[in-house]
């Protein structure tokens, strides 16, 4: 174990713990939040306020039979969830919590995250195709199309921030908001586009066409049972965490708070708040239609995002450095 010190091992263990905890607490929190939005209580009787509900679900899912449909492409069926899960988990490695406190403080952290997320559509399409089921096929293709369309406005909107900061390191981006106003104030258009695109990127309502219950049973993961379904769900919640984290870091100041000392607590609170608001959307909104969704990306978000880059560039020339 020459290059692999204890520090790395600890960080890796932390990464895995974060993943598992996000999914467990995320699902629990979502069931609670949506329950309360629906005037219900959510999980309540297993453990204190249902806290043991998710461990029970995990135990059950791990011990469920692993069904492989007869006509499915056996190898792809087994492997495809990895194409979704691995990029989602790997992108977590780029998270930074404070200057110096990070898994890996990459110089191109933002680039790394985007690169990882670009792999996910492949996974969705593979899952959809490998099951030999029309519902999964439609769901998988919808997911792939949606992810590819929304990556572009997401990247373009983030580009405004990157131009302004002059770095792709997530630490730099957050630190740039320490003294000046947050990027939500400096680039509101970019914020709106980025949030919408992230919402679509993580398949959340009102963009959850890929798993539309009313027409596609459960979308691309219809055929997955037991822990494979658990893995896909884990990946979804990890993506949700990553999306919320990105919005918090890029536009909401990261660990900075005006008038108060910088702390990872702020980052954590902002992320949880953003995650909760996606749950709020999920409890309230119906879903859009597929073609409306595509139109929104290609006809509205991308042109506006491009215009936003122009605007940022020209303001950078005109305004003092402190502002841009």
């Amino acid at each position, binding site marked *: 174990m020459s290059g692999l010190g204890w520090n790395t091992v600890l960080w890796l263990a932390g990464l895995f713990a974060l993943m598992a905890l996000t999914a467990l607490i995320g699902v629990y929190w979502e069931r609670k939040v949506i329950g309360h939005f629906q005037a219900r209580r959510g999980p309540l009787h297993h453990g204190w306020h249902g806290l043991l*509900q998710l461990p029970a679900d995990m135990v*059950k899912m791990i011990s469920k039979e692993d069904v492989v449909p007869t006509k499915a492409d056996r190898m792809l069926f087994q492997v495809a969830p990895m194409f979704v899960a691995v990029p989602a988990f790997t992108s977590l490695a780029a998270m930074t919590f404070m200057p110096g406190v990070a898994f890996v403080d990459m110089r191109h952290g933002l680039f790394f995250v985007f690169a990882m997320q670009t792999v996910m559509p492949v996974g969705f399409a593979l899952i959809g195709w490998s099951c030999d089921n029309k519902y999964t096929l439609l769901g998988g293709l919808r997911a792939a199309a949606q992810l590819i369309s929304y990556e572009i406005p997401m990247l373009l909107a983030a580009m405004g921030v990157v131009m302004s900061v002059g770095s792709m390191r997530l630490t730099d981006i957050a630190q740039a908001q320490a003294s000046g106003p947050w990027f939500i104030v400096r680039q509101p258009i970019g914020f709106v586009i980025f949030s919408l695109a992230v919402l679509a990127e993580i398949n959340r309502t009102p963009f959850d066409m890929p798993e539309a219950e009313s027409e596609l049973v459960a979308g691309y993961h219809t055929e997955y049972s037991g822990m494979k379904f658990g893995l896909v769900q884990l990946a979804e919640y990890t993506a949700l965490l990553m999306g919320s984290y990105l919005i918090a870091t890029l536009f909401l100041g990261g660990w900075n708070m005006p008038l108060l000392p910088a702390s990872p607590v702020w980052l954590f609170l902002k992320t949880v708040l953003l995650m909760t608001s996606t749950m709020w959307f999920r409890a309230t909104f119906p879903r859009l239609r597929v073609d409306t969704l595509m139109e929104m990306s290609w006809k509205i978000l991308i042109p506006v995002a491009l215009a936003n880059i122009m605007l940022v560039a020209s303001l950078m020339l005109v305004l003092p450095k402190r502002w841009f």
Partner: protein
Amino acid sequence: MGVVDTAETPGFITTTLDKLLRWGRSRSMWPCQAGLACCSLEMMTAGSARYDFDRFGIMFRSSPRQSDVLIVPGPITRKMEPVYTRVYNQMAEPRWVIAMGSCAISGGAFADSYNVLRGADTIFPVDVYVPGCPPRPEALFYGCLRLQEKIASTSFIGSDREAIYVPPDLPPEWPEAITDPPKTCLEPEGEDDDS
């Protein structure tokens, strides 16, 4: 009781694992969201705000692959029989069945009919019967909690579990009818233009 299994008694590791499985499986029963008739409305009501199935960790899943419990909420007709058999076969083991209402128990008011099965247990094993026409949501709750007890008290290790015979996926007179109905039944007029 030792740590390792012997021929007579399961060991410590096995029994602990068994307890954990029993706990997990009984605390997390996801019914398949497969409605049939009148009882399915009461099944939906059981998930709504006044009753709230989610309290007990009972959450409706739309895909049979991801669900553990099949609630049969109504009469199974001859046309429905292969579909329900298929849904049951699609569910991953371990799986349980609740027969909800008189129709699913015995055929109920329609037991004389030429098209209704005399109960869901004629096609697959049923674990819990919930009587009523339709049973109130409270009755369904009671049934689910009884099933929870049953799961929690059934050992998954050893020879307690009986082998269950499940008929093949579709009966021979139903070739492909559900998955891929013959294309001829959807033959629109404009199809044979080239003739």
